[in-house]
C-alpha cells in the first residue's frame, strides 16, 4: 500500500515538474476562460443604458416632459436609455450607419396628436425587442404621470440589489476555469506519455498503470487552482464580488466537481491519447457548457430544449448549485447536492484509474 502511495506521489511530483518546465500547459488553460469572459463581459455587459438619439422638434413643456421621462426610464440595471445625440440630421446619419439603433423624434405637433415617432436600425429582432420594450416602459411612465390609476406591477426581488450580469458571468467563468483547468491539465499531462513515447515505461511498471492516471488527475486538480487565478482577476475587474463565507460554501460543490473534472480529463486522454484530439473536445465542451448550461444564465430561464438537455449534462448542476451559494442566494449547500458531487468525484477518479490501467494493456506504437 505504502509503495503504491509513494508511486502516486512520485507521478504527481513528476507531473508538477512537467507543468513547471512547460508553462504553456497552464497558460493555454488560463487563456480560454479569460478571453471568453473578457469579450462576453464587454459585449453583453455594455447594453444596459442603450445609447439613443432624442430629437425634440416641439420644444414645449409637454415635449420636454416626455424627453425627461425618456431620460428617467429605469429598470433593475439602471437607466434604460442614454441620450447621445439630439440633432435631427446627425441622428439620421448615425441611424443609417447602424451607429444608433433608436432615434426618438417628438414632432412639432406632439401636443395635438400625442404621438412620438421612433426610427429603428432593426439589425436583429432581439435588439429590437429590447428597444421596443424599453420604449413601452417609457410610454407607461409617461402615461402614468397623468393617469395614476393604471394597472401597475410591484417588483419584489429576493435581494435588494441585483447581481450584475457581468458579475454573474464572472463567477461562472471562475467555475469554468477550475473545471476546464482540471480536465485539460490532467488530460494533457496524461497524454504527455503518449506524445513523448514514454508509455512503455508506464505500462511496464510492476505497480500498474493506474498510478499514472491518478497522478495526472491529482496534478490537474491542484494546478486548476493556479490556472483559474487570471480568470478570477478578470472577474474581479468586471465587478464580481464574493465574500469569504460564500466562497467557502460554494467550494463544497466546486472543489469535488473540480476533482471529478480532473478524473474525466484522464478518461478522455486515455481514449483519445493525443493532444490534437483531446484539446478541441475538452475546450469546446467547456465553452458550450458555459454558454448553454447555466454559466451565462440560469438553467431555469433557458428554452425547453436546453432545459431538457441540461437534465442529463453534469456541468449544469455544478453551475446551478454553486452560483446561488456564490452570490448569497442560498444559505448552505444541500446535503444531497454535496453527496452527489462528491460521489461524482469518486466515480470519476475510479474511472480514471480504470481507464489508465486498461490503457497499459494496449499495443504501443511509434517505435517504442
Amino acid at each position, binding site marked *: 500500500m505504502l509503495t503504491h502511495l509513494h508511486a502516486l506521489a512520485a507521478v504527481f511530483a513528476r507531473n508538477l515538474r512537467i507543468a513547471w518546465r512547460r508553462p504553456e500547459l497552464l497558460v493555454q488553460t488560463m487563456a480560454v476562460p479569460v478571453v471568453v469572459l473578457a469579450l462576453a463581459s464587454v459585449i453583453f455587459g455594455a447594453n444596459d443604458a442603450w445609447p439613443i438619439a432624442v430629437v425634440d422638434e416641439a420644444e414645449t413643456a409637454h415635449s420636454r416632459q416626455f424627453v425627461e421621462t425618456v431620460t428617467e426610464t429605469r429598470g433593475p440595471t439602471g437607466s434604460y436609455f442614454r441620450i447621445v445625440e439630439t440633432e435631427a440630421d446627425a441622428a439620421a446619419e448615425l441611424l443609417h450607419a447602424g451607429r444608433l439603433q433608436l432615434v426618438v423624434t417628438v414632432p412639432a405637433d406632439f401636443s395635438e396628436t400625442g404621438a412620438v415617432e421612433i426610427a429603428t436600425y432593426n439589425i436583429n429582432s432581439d435588439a429590437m425587442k429590447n428597444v421596443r420594450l424599453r420604449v413601452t416602459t417609457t410610454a407607461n411612465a409617461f402615461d402614468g404621470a397623468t393617469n395614476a390609476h393604471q394597472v401597475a406591477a410591484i417588483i419584489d426581488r*429576493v435581494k435588494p440589489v441585483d447581481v450584475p450580469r457581468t458579475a454573474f458571468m464572472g463567477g461562472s467563468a471562475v467555475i469554468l476555469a477550475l473545471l476546464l483547468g482540471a480536465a485539460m491539465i490532467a488530460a494533457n499531462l496524461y497524454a504527455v506519455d503518449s506524445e513523448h513515447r514514454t508509455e512503455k515505461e508506464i505500462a511496464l511498471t510492476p505497480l500498474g498503470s493506474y498510478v499514472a492516471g491518478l497522478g495526472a488527475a491529482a496534478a490537474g486538480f491542484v494546478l486548476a487552482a493556479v490556472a483559474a487565478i487570471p480568470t478570477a482577476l478578470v472577474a474581479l475587474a468586471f465587478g464580481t464580488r464574493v465574500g469569504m463565507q460564500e466562497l467557502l460554501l460554494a467550494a463544497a460543490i466546486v472543489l469535488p466537481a473540480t476533482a471529478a473534472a480532473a478524473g474525466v480529463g484522464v478518461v478522455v486522454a486515455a481514449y483519445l491519447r493525443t493532444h490534437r484530439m483531446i484539446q478541441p473536445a475538452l475546450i469546446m465542451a467547456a465553452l458550450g457548457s458555459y454558454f448553454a*448550461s447555466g454559466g451565462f444564465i440560469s438553467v431555469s430561464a433557458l428554452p425547453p430544449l436546453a432545459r431538457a438537455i441540461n437534465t442529463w449534462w453534469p456541468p449544469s448542476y455544478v453551475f446551478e448549485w454553486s452560483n446561488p451559494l456564490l452570490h448569497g442566494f442560498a444559505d448552505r449547500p444541500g446535503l444531497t447536492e454535496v453527496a452527489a458531487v462528491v460521489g461524482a468525484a469518486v466515480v470519476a477518479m475510479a474511472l480514471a484509474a480504470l481507464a489508465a490501467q486498461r490503457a497499459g494493456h494496449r499495443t504501443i506504437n511509434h517505435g517504442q
Partner: protein
Amino acid sequence: MHAALALAKKDLLVSFRAPLFVIISIVVPVAFTFLYAIVVHVSTTATIAIADEDQTPHSADFIAVMSQMHNSDGDYYEILTSDPDQARDMYEGADVGAMLVIPEGFGRSVDEGEDPAVTLSLVNINADGTKNQHLRIEEALRQFQQTLPSTPPDRLAILESTELERDIPVSVYLGSALLLFAALYAGIVSVGVSIAREWEERTAKALVLSPSGHASLVAGKWAAAAIMSVVTIAVTLAALGWVLGYPWHMLSWRSAGVLAIVWIYGAALGTLLGVKLRRALPLVPVAVLIAVAHFLVSGYESYIRGFAHGGGVELLWASTHWIPLAPLFDVVRFEVTSLPQPEGAIVAALGSLLLAAAAVSFAVWKLTKALRFTQGQ
C-alpha cells in the same frame, strides 16, 4: 500539382485509416454550434409561473395578454403554470426564477379603478434576467390597460419606421454567425493540426526539404482539409436547420462564396499557426480562441455597433475595422432574410483574402528559414 495531390491523398488515407480525429474535427464545432443554438431564444422567451389567486375574467384576460405577446422569434413568455400552489412550489424550489402573483381582488380593483396591481417576484441573481422580466411585464401592463374601457383615449401613441425592410430574426442573425464560425474553426484547426502533425510524427523534414516546394505542401494540406471542412459545414447547417429552423434553402452562391472566403482566411491562419507552433498542444487552444473571438466580435459587430459609444465596447468595436470579416457575416444574414446587401462587402472580401495571402506568405517564408528539426528528425 502532383505533389500536392499526393499529399492530399496521403492525408485523406491517414484520416480514413484512423477516423477518430476526423470525427472529432467534425463533431466538436457542430456540438458547440448546437449548444449555442439551443440558447439563442433565451432572450426571446422568458419562463414564468403565475399564481392566479383572483380567478376572475380580468385575471384570465391578463394571462391571455401575456401568453399572446410575441415577436417574429417566438412568444415572449413561457407560462409554466397559472395554479397558485404550483407556482409557489416552483418558485420556492428554484424551478423558475420569476413568479407573477395576481392577487385576489385584482378584478374588482380593475372594475372599480382602485389602483390594481400585480406582484412580480424575481430571483435577481442575474440582472439581465430581471431586466427581461421587467420589460415584458411593462408590455403586458400596457396591452392589458388598452383593453380596459376605463382607459383614457389620450395615451401616448408610438409610430415606428425601420431602417431595414424587416427585422432580421435573431435565429438567422446568430445562425449565420455560427455557420461562419464553423467554417472558420474548420479552416484553422484542420489545416493547423494537419501541418503540426507532420512535426509531431517526425515526417516534416521530408516534406519541407522536398524539391516540390512549399506551395505544394500548403496546397496539399488545404485540399485534404477542405474536404473535411465541407462535411463540418454541411453538418453544422443541418444542426442549425433542426434547432433554429435556419432557412438554409435561402443561401445562394453569394453565401457560398462568403463561406469559402472565411474558410480560406481560417486555413491561412491555421497554416501560419501550424508552421510556427509545430505542435497541437499550444496550437489548438490558440485556434479555438481565434475562432471564438472572431465569432463574438466580428459575428456581433453590426449588433454592438449601435451601442459602442464610449468605454471598452467602443474600443472593441473599433478593433473590427482591422479585421475585415464583420461585413461578411452580414452578407449571409441579409441574403437569408432577402434584404438588399449591406455596404462594404466587397472590401471585406478582398481584405480577408489579402490578409490570408499575407499569412500564407509569412508561413512559407518561415518554412524556408526555420529548418531545425528536433526529436530524432
